[in-house]
C-alpha cells in the first residue's frame, strides 16, 4: 500500500487525537472555573457552526489564518523560522490602504493595486530579515520577532498620529475606506467577502507549489546547506525567495483584513493571528490540505470561543490554553513524526 497515504492517515489521526486531548483538558479547566463544560462546549460549537451566519464568520477568520499559515509553511519547510507574520501582515495592510485613502482611483484599478502593494509590503518586511540573515548571519527568529514589534509600533504611530481619522473621536484608527473599495459581500447578512476568492486561488496554487522547481529547491535547503549547495542550488538566493513569498502571503492577509473586514487601519490589526498561524502550519504538517483543515478547526475555536465568552461565564483564556496545549502536544508528537526519536529508536534497538 502506498506509504504516502498511510503516512497522511497517521498524521491526520494523530492531529485529531491531539485536539481531543486538548479539548479534554479544556473541559476540566472550564469545570474548575465553576462552569459547566457541556454548556460551554455546546455554546462554543453553536457559536462556530450553528448557523450560516456563524459559519461565514468562521470562513472570514479562516482567510487570514490560512494565508499566513501557508506563508509560514513555505519558510518552515526551508527551516527558516519566520515568526514575524504579524508584522508582515501589518506592513502589508499599511501599504495597501494608502492608495485607498489618499488616491481617488477607480475601483477596478485600486483593488489590484492595493493587493500588489500588500504583497510587496509583506514580502519586503520579511525579506529584510532574510537579507540580515544572508549578509550578517543574524538569527531570523530574533529579527522577524523584533520586526513584529517595530511594525506594531509603527502602526500605532500612524493611527495615533498622521493617519488618525479627524472625525474618529480620537480613537486610534485611520479614515474609513470609501464603500466603493470594500470587497463585495456575498450576501447582506454574512460577512464573507470577496477576499475569499483570493484565498482560494492561493490555496489552489499551494497545492501545486511543492512540485514546482522553486518548491523543490526550498524543500531542499531545508534538508541542509551542504546537500543543497552540492546539488547546485544557490542557497542564499533561495532563502531570500522563500522568505519573500512567506512575507508576501502574510501581507496579503493584511490586504484582506483592511479591504474585506475592517475597512480601515486600527491598532491591534494583526492581533493574535501570527501565533495561531504558526500552530496551524505545524499542526497541518506544513502541507496545504492539512493547513486548510487545521485552519478551519482553529477559526471555529476562536469564533466559538468569542461566543462562549459573550454568552457564558467561562473565561476566554481557556481558549488560549487549548490552543497552547494543542501546539505543545503537536510538537511533542512532531518530534516523533519528523523522525528524531524514530531515528533514536532504530539505533536504540541496536543495543537490544
Amino acid at each position, binding site marked *: 500500500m502506498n506509504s504516502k497515504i498511510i503516512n497522511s492517515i497517521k498524521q491526520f489521526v494523530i492531529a485529531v487525537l491531539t485536539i481531543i486531548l486538548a479539548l479534554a483538558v479544556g473541559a476540566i479547566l472550564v469545570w474548575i472555573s465553576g462552569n459547566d463544560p457541556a454548556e460551554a462546549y455546546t455554546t462554543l460549537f453553536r457559536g462556530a457552526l450553528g448557523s450560516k451566519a456563524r459559519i461565514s464568520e468562521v470562513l472570514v477568520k479562516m482567510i487570514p489564518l490560512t494565508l499566513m499559515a501557508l506563508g509560514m509553511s513555505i519558510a518552515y519547510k526551508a527551516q527558516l523560522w519566520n515568526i514575524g507574520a504579524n508584522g508582515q501582515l501589518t506592513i502589508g495592510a499599511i501599504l495597501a490602504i494608502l492608495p485607498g485613502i489618499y488616491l481617488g482611483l477607480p475601483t477596478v484599478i485600486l483593488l489590484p493595486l492595493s493587493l500588489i502593494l500588500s504583497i510587496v509590503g509583506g514580502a519586503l518586511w520579511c525579506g529584510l530579515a532574510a537579507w540580515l540573515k544572508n549578509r550578517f548571519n543574524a538569527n531570523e527568529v530574533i529579527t522577524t520577532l523584533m520586526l513584529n514589534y517595530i511594525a506594531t509600533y509603527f502602526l500605532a504611530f500612524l493611527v495615533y498620529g498622521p493617519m488618525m481619522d479627524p472625525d474618529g473621536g480620537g480613537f486610534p484608527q485611520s479614515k474609513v475606506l470609501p464603500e466603493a473599495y470594500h470587497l463585495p459581500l456575498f450576501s447582506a447578512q454574512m460577512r464573507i467577502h470577496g477576499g475569499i476568492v483570493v484565498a482560494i486561488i492561493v490555496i489552489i496554487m499551494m497545492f501545486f507549489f511543492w512540485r514546482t522547481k522553486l518548491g523543490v529547491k526550498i524543500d531542499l535547503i531545508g534538508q541542509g546547506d551542504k546537500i543543497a549547495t552540492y546539488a547546485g542550488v544557490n542557497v542564499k538566493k533561495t532563502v531570500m525567495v522563500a522568505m519573500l513569498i512567506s512575507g508576501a502571503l502574510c501581507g496579503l492577509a493584511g490586504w484582506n483584513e483592511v479591504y474585506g473586514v475592517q475597512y480601515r487601519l486600527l491598532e491591534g490589526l494583526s492581533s493574535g493571528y501570527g501565533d495561531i498561524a504558526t500552530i496551524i502550519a505545524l499542526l497541518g504538517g506544513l502541507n496545504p490540505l492539512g493547513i486548510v483543515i487545521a485552519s478551519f478547526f482553529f477559526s471555529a475555536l476562536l469564533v466559538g470561543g468569542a461566543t462562549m465568552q459573550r454568552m457564558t461565564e467561562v473565561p476566554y483564556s481557556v481558549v488560549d490554553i487549548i490552543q497552547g496545549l494543542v501546539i505543545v502536544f503537536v*510538537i511533542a508528537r512532531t518530534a516523533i513524526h519528523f523522525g528524531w526519536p524514530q531515528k533514536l529508536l532504530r539505533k536504540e534497538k541496536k543495543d537490544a
Partner: protein
Amino acid sequence: MLSSIFTVGFLVSLLAGTIRLATPILLPALGQIYTQRAGILNLGVEGTMTIGAVAGFSAAYKTGNLWLGLLAGMFFGMLWSLIMAWLSVTMRANQVIAGIALNILGAGTAVYVYRIIFGVQSLPPQVTPFAAVNIPLLSKIPIIGQIFFQHNILVYLSYVMVFVTWFILEKTTFGLKIRAVGEHPRAADSKGISVAGVRYAAVLIGGLYAGAAGAFMSIAYMNLFTESIVSGRGFIAVSVVIFARFMPVRAMWGALLFGFASALQMRLQALGIDMANQLMLMLPYVMTIAALIFASKKAEFPSAYTIPYSRLER
C-alpha cells in the same frame, strides 16, 4: 524644551530610571545565559515571566508578604520551564516552536489563573510594591546617591547576581559542565556527565530567574497584574544574551542599554515631548537588531546550540 532635558534633575532621573528599567531585562537574561550556554534556545521566557508575574502577585496579595510573592514567582517560573526542558531535552523537539508554544500557553494559563483567583473585578486588585531602600550613607551622596543607591531591594539583588552568575560559570565545576554540554555534549557524555541532567538544570535555572523577573514586574516595578505586563521583555532578554555573547557582564551592559531607551522614552513623554512616542518605543527592538548584526558576525555560539543530543547519533 531642550533646556528642560539638559538639567541635572532630568539626567539623574533618567539614569536612575535606566538602572531600574534594565532590571526586568537583566534578570531573565542572566538566567538565560545558563540555558543558552548549555545549548538550549528558550524563547518561552516571555510566557515564563508572565507565569511568574501572576504567581508572584497572587502570593503577595493573598499573604501580604512580598518576599513570599517573589519566592512564588521563582518557584512557578521554574515549574513552568520544566515543560520546556521536557520538550527540548527529552522529546528533542524543535526548540524555537516549543518556546513559542509555551508563550501562548503561558499567557493563557496566567490569565486563566488570575481570573480563577481574583474573579472579574471593576477595580483591579493591587499590592504595595517593594519600597525603595535607601542604602545608608551612600544614598546621601548628591547625584551619585540618587542614581545608584535609592532603588528597591530586588534591583540591588539583580546586579549582585551579575557577579554571581559570572563566578558560577567560570569558577565552579557546575559552570564547567554547563559550558561543556553546550559546546561538545558528546565529550561531556564520555566523561560521565549527564547531558540531559545538566540541560534540565540549566533550563530550570533560567525559569527561576524568569519567574523572579515576572514577579518583579508585578510586585516591584508595578503593583498589579495584567495580561501584557511583560510586553516583549522576555524576547529582549533572549536577544541581549545573544548580543552579549553569553557573558554576564556584557548582558548587564546590554540590559542597561535597553533600560536607557525605555527610560528616555518615558521621560520625554512625561515632559510633554510627544515626539512620536511610538517611534521611541520602537527603539529597543531596533537596537536588538543592530546588536545582532554586530554580534552574529563573530558567531561565537555554543557549538551544540539548539541541537538536541543523542548518544547514539553519529
